[in-house]
C-alpha cells in the first residue's frame, strides 16, 4: 500500500472509480430496462437511453421544497455518489491489482454499503414531504431487515476461507480452491446475500420504499433536475457495484475457470448474468408489504444464512477443510 496520490486520484475518478462506474452503471440500467421490456413483449429503449435521461436531468431546473434544509437536500446525493465511487474503486482494485489493496477492505466495503440507505433516508427526510418521509421510514425498516442476513452470508465466506478479511485474499482463496458458490455453505450464503442485495437495490418484490404505484417514487418524490439526476446516477452505479460485489465474493471475481489470459474477458459476463437474474426476479414477482418483507428476511433468509454459516464452520473444523461443504 504505497501508492502515490496521483494514482489514488486516478483510481477514484477514472478507472475503476467514478467515470468507469458511471458508464458501466448506465449500461447496466439499459440492460435492466431492455430485459424488462423483452419480458413484457415490448421492444424497449435504445442503448443510449439512460445517458439521455441523465443529461436531460442535468439540464432541468431544480426546486428546493419549502422547509427543506438545503445542505442536506443537496449534500446527500453527492455523498451517495462519492461513496458508491469509493465502493467500486475498492472492489475493483482488489480484483485487478490485488497487490495494491489494503488490509481489512472488506470492512470498508460493508460500511460503505450500509452508508447508501442512510444517505437515501437523509435525502428523503430532508425533502419535507410526508410521502418521502414514509418512503424513508420504509427504507429504514427494510435496511434493518436485510442487514443481519447479509452479514451472516459474508461471515460464512470469511470462515470458509479461514478468516481472510482482505478481498484480494478471498479472491486468491477462491482461485486456489474453488469459488464459494460451488459449495453447499457458499450456495446458502449466496442465495441469502442475493436476496439481501435485491432488497438493497429496491427491486421488486422489495421495492417497498419506492413503490411507484403506491407512494409515487417515495424517497425521490421531491427531487428534480440535477439532484434527481445525481440520485439516479448513484442508483445506476449501484447496479454495477452490487453485481460485482456478488461476483467477487461468491463467484471468484472476473476470472474464468479455464487456462489462458483472454478467456478472462468473458468474466465480465458474470456480473451481467447476476443482473439479469435479479431483473427476472423483479419482473415476475409482486411487491411485498414492509412487514412481510421484515418477516421474510428475519425468518427464511436469516435461517438460510445461519445454516450456511454453521456448515462452513463444520467444513472448516474438519482436519483437512472440506471444500465442497
Amino acid at each position, binding site marked *: 500500500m504505497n501508492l502515490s496520490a496521483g494514482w489514488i486520484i486516478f483510481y477514484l475518478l477514472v478507472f475503476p472509480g467514478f467515470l468507469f462506474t458511471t458508464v458501466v452503471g448506465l449500461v447496466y440500467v439499459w440492460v435492466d430496462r431492455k430485459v424488462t421490456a423483452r419480458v413484457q413483449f415490448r421492444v*424497449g429503449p*435504445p442503448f443510449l437511453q439512460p445517458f*439521455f435521461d*441523465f443529461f436531460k436531468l442535468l439540464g432541468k431546473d431544480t*426546486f428546493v421544497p419549502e422547509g427543506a434544509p438545503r445542505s442536506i437536500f443537496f449534500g446527500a446525493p453527492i455523498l451517495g455518489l462519492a461513496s458508491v465511487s469509493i465502493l467500486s474503486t475498492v472492489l475493483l482494485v482488489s480484483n485487478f491489482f490485488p497487490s495494491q489493496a489494503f488490509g481489512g477492505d472488506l470492512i470498508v466495503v460493508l460500511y460503505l454499503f450500509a452508508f447508501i440507505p442512510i444517505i437515501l433516508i437523509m435525502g428523503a427526510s430532508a425533502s419535507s414531504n410526508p410521502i418521502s418521509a414514509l418512503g424513508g421510514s420504509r427504507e429504514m425498516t427494510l435496511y434493518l431487515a436485510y442487514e443481519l442476513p447479509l452479514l451472516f452470508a459474508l461471515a460464512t465466506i470469511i470462515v470458509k476461507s479461514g478468516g481472510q478479511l482482505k478481498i484480494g485474499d478471498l479472491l486468491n482463496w477462491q482461485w486456489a480452491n474453488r469459488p464459494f458458490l460451488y459449495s453447499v455453505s457458499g450456495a446458502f450464503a449466496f442465495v441469502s446475500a442475493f436476496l439481501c442485495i435485491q432488497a438493497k437495490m429496491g427491486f421488486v418484490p422489495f421495492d417497498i420504499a419506492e413503490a411507484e404505484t403506491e407512494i*409515487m*417514487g417515495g424517497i425521490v418524490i421531491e427531487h428534480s433536475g440535477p439532484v*434527481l439526476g445525481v440520485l439516479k446516477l448513484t442508483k445506476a452505479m449501484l447496479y454495477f457495484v452490487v453485481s460485482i460485489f456478488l461476483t467477487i465474493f461468491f463467484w471468484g471475481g472476473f476470472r474464468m475457470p479455464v487456462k489462458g489470459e483472454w478467456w478472462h474477458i468473458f468474466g465480465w459476463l458474470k456480473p451481467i448474468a447476476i443482473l439479469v437474474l435479479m431483473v427476472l426476479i423483479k419482473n415476475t414477482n409482486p411487491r411485498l408489504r414492509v412487514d412481510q418483507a421484515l418477516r421474510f428476511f428475519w425468518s427464511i433468509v436469516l435461517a438460510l444464512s445461519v445454516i450456511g454459516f454453521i456448515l462452513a464452520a463444520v467444513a472448516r473444523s474438519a482436519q483437512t477443510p472440506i471444500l465442497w461443504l
Partner: protein
Amino acid sequence: MLKGIKKGALTRSLWVYHVAASPCNNCDIEILDLLTPRFDVERFGILLTGSPRHADLLLVTGMVNKKVLDRVLRVYAETPKPCVVAAFGSCAISGDLFVDSYNFAGPLDKHIPVDVYIGGCPPKPEAMILGVVRAIEKVKKLKDL
C-alpha cells in the same frame, strides 16, 4: 454545443406526468395504451412518472373545473422547466360535452400555456403518438433552454 446536448437529450427522454383534471376517466385509460407492447413508447424514452417534479411533459386530461383549477396551476408551477404541456382529449381542449356545466372553468389554454393539442374523445393511440411527435418538435423550438 451544450444547448444542443441538452435539447437532444430532452427530446429523447420525455417523462410524462399525467394530470387528471376531472376527466371521465376514459382518456386516462387510453394513455396506458401507449405503454403496451403494441405501441411501446419507451422505445423513444417516454416514461410515466409518479411525481410532477420528474416530469417534462404534462398530459392534462378532462375538463378543468373550478375546484381542480388550483391544483392544475400548482402542478404546472411545480414542474421543473423546461416542460411541455399537452391538452389531452376534447375536454381539456374545449370542454367537450361539459361546456355548459356550472362548474366548468374554461378550456385549459385559458389558464396555462398549452403547447400541444391532442383531440378526440378519447384520442386514438395514433393521435396520441402524433401528439408526442408534435411535443418533441415543440421542444426543439424551445428558446429558453
